[in-house]
């Protein structure tokens, strides 16, 4: 147990402590040391720190005050609960539209859009084997498609988050749609999710479309454009999820993510942008694992570190610019195919960790997500999980309820140290861009992944249903509802419709705007994203935009490291 001096009644305290220690040693069965995922040893008991009172303002602060360790808003969930933002996306724009209108009807004020895997890869639907279309997201290749997908949705008042990697064609389509409906861009709000190309290069290759340098250039253009023209849009979401799911420990995931954010901040500064202007629009996206206390400490440490970093490294002056805003998603990597209903318990635990960690919005996975895109019933349970935690568990009643827990405060400090260590390694390599280019980050993550796997293989890390408490497969629960696939005829019709569209649009406009886009990509002074918006308005498709930029700036090949 950590020894700290308590100024009051020191002698009595010491005696009681010695007594406890002696009895603990006598009665404890296993002397095997305990470690969490990030490699921090966990003591059985934590006591008060001697100077906690003096350090309170500096290390913790009140909610809504720098360094924001206890929460970025004054009232946190007690004042306004976290937003429930479930990811949705499947099939054709019309099918998406049906689903999203249902959600809005049920009271949602924030929607999300997941495009098809083919869209992530930079393809139009006429360029992909039919069975792969629309199975994991919605096929959106043109401004028309977006218009249909958002028919009847008031984009001037509803917040839209989209998985939209560089060059941000989906946002481009939304802007085109706003123009068609005479809605001012001043009213458009939402987030460019998956704008963090560094995390894709490292750990989600499907989202990685353009060369590193190309993506870097376009991101800065995108942020600059959004700051000027779409004031309520968050152009950047820095993602810790992919790296954690690829095997990074929670401390590493936070460390690498903050390093990426630092890199992006520096790139923006170099572009002449004002940190007090762009930093408030930087958001974060994290995985939430089963390691409950570790996750809470991770987020608290993250807030504290970011508050300091923004001031010291990026020159932020306003309190607003130093706030760490994040969305959390329960980790699919912890779910199991065996005994799938257990995943409901897991998701629930992960959600609690995120809520107690002070997130701003939350997505809960459905229990069948290990096997397929969620079916309706499991998806409803995922939403109900959040409702139950919010309404029945009293989790919103207290801001940072784990604050002051000796364990959690100590763990927060320790996580902070680990995170800063990781960031120092990255800084030593020359910053996050260089560190991923050389493969250092990937190697560190790969090692952690192997380490975790060998602990699972040996049984040291128990996973219920997988390496202990097993059920013979024949008797196990099946993934409950049959997998639903988009109807082949619908997809075929979509492909046909796209082909017709390509023939019938103005070829002159397409040629002209694509040429403009190419020119801008090769000139240092133009804003490439502004040309993307012009091009898609003229009928250029998603695949054509990505193809053009791949040509000019390079195809995004992931780096394979040992």
């Amino acid at each position, binding site marked *: 147990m950590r020894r700290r001096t308590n100024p009051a009644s020191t002698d009595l305290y010491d005696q009681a402590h010695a007594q406890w220690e002696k009895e603990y040693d006598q009665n404890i069965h296993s002397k095997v040391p305990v470690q969490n995922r990030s490699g921090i040893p966990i003591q059985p008991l934590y006591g008060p720190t001697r100077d906690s009172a003096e350090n309170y303002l500096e290390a913790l602060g009140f909610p809504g005050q720098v360094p924001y360790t206890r929460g970025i808003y004054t009232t946190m969930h007690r004042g306004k609960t976290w937003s429930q933002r479930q990811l949705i996306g499947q099939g054709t724009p019309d099918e998406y539209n049906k689903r999203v209108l249902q959600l809005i009807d049920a009271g949602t004020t924030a929607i999300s859009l997941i495009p098809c*895997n*083919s869209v*992530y*890869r930079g393809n139009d639907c006429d360029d*992909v*084997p039919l*069975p*792969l279309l629309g*199975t*994991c997201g919605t096929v959106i290749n043109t401004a028309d498609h977006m218009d249909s997908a958002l028919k009847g949705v008031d984009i001037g008042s509803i917040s839209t988050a989209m998985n939209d990697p560089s060059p941000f064609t989906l946002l481009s389509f939304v802007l085109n749609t706003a123009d068609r409906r005479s809605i001012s861009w001043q009213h458009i709000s939402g987030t460019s999710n998956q704008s963090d190309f560094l995390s894709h290069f490292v750990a*989600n*290759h*499907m*989202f*990685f479309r353009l060369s590193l340098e190309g993506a870097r250039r376009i991101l800065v253009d995108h942020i600059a454009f959004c700051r000027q023209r779409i004031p309520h849009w968050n152009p950047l979401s820095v993602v810790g999820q992919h790296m954690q*799911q*690829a*095997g990074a420990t929670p401390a590493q995931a936070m460390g690498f993510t903050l390093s990426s954010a630092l890199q992006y901040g520096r790139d923006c500064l170099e572009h002449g942008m004002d940190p007090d202007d762009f930093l408030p629009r930087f958001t974060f996206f994290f995985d939430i694992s089963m390691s409950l206390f570790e996750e809470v400490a991770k987020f608290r440490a993250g807030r504290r570190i970011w508050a300091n970093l923004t001031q010291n490294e990026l020159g932020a002056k306003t309190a607003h610019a130093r706030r760490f805003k994040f969305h959390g998603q329960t980790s699919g990597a912890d779910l*199991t*195919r*065996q005994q799938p209903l257990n995943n409901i318990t897991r998701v629930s635990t992960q959600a609690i960790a995120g809520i107690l960690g002070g997130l701003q919005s939350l997505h809960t996975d459905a229990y069948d997500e*290990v*096997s*397929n895109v969620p079916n309706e019933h499991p998806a409803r349970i995922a939403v109900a999980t959040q409702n139950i935690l919010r309404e029945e568990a009293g989790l919103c009643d207290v801001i940072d309820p784990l604050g002051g827990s000796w364990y959690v405060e100590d763990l927060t400090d320790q996580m902070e140290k680990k995170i800063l260590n990781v960031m120092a390694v990255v800084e030593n390599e020359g910053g996050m861009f260089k560190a991923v280019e050389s493969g250092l980050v990937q190697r560190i993550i*790969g090692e952690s*992944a*192997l380490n975790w*796997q060998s602990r699972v*293989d040996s049984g040291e890390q128990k*996973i219920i*249903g*997988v*390496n202990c408490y097993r059920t013979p497969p024949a008797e196990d629960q*099946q*993934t409950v509802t*049959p*997998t639903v*696939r988009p109807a082949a005829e619908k997809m075929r019709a979509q492909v046909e419709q796209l082909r017709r569209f390509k023939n019938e649009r103005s070829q002159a406009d397409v040629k002209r705007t694509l040429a403009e886009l190419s020119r801008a990509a090769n000139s240092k002074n133009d804003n490439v994203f502004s040309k993307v918006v012009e091009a898609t308005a003229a009928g250029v498709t998603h695949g054509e935009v990505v193809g053009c930029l791949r040509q000019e700036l390079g195809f995004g*090949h*992931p780096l*394979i490291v040992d």
Partner: protein
Amino acid sequence: MNAPNQIPYRILVTKVGLDGHDRGSRIVAAYLRDAGMEVIYTPPWQSLDAVVRLAGDEDVDLVGISSLSTDHLIIPDLMSRLTAADLTHVRVVVGGIVPDEEYPLLLESGVSAILGPGTDRGTIVEQISGFAAAARHERDTEFI
């Protein structure tokens, strides 16, 4: 597992379709290497024709495909291309996420096994060794 002095099995570990997640395939590649096999490891998004060509040029015994998402849906097409290229001795094993009711689709097209999430290391190595051995046994009569 290769017996000492036995010629190592050659296994192609690859991904087809659209998904790019490679945490699982990297770990399996390490398992197989540590079991004495030679693993030809590719980046994701290999076209079906590329896989067929690789299987032939590298003279592999078995093709291991890591499939998350829905990429397994194009594997039956791969199986027919392997047959057309005279590579029927090459075994194909799929690892990753396949909905239960789509197992028959794969197995009937000729896939030797589907190893789902949670399959332990020992089973993975054992199954792949077994199939690779069978492949090897079949192929040696092709040329004189």
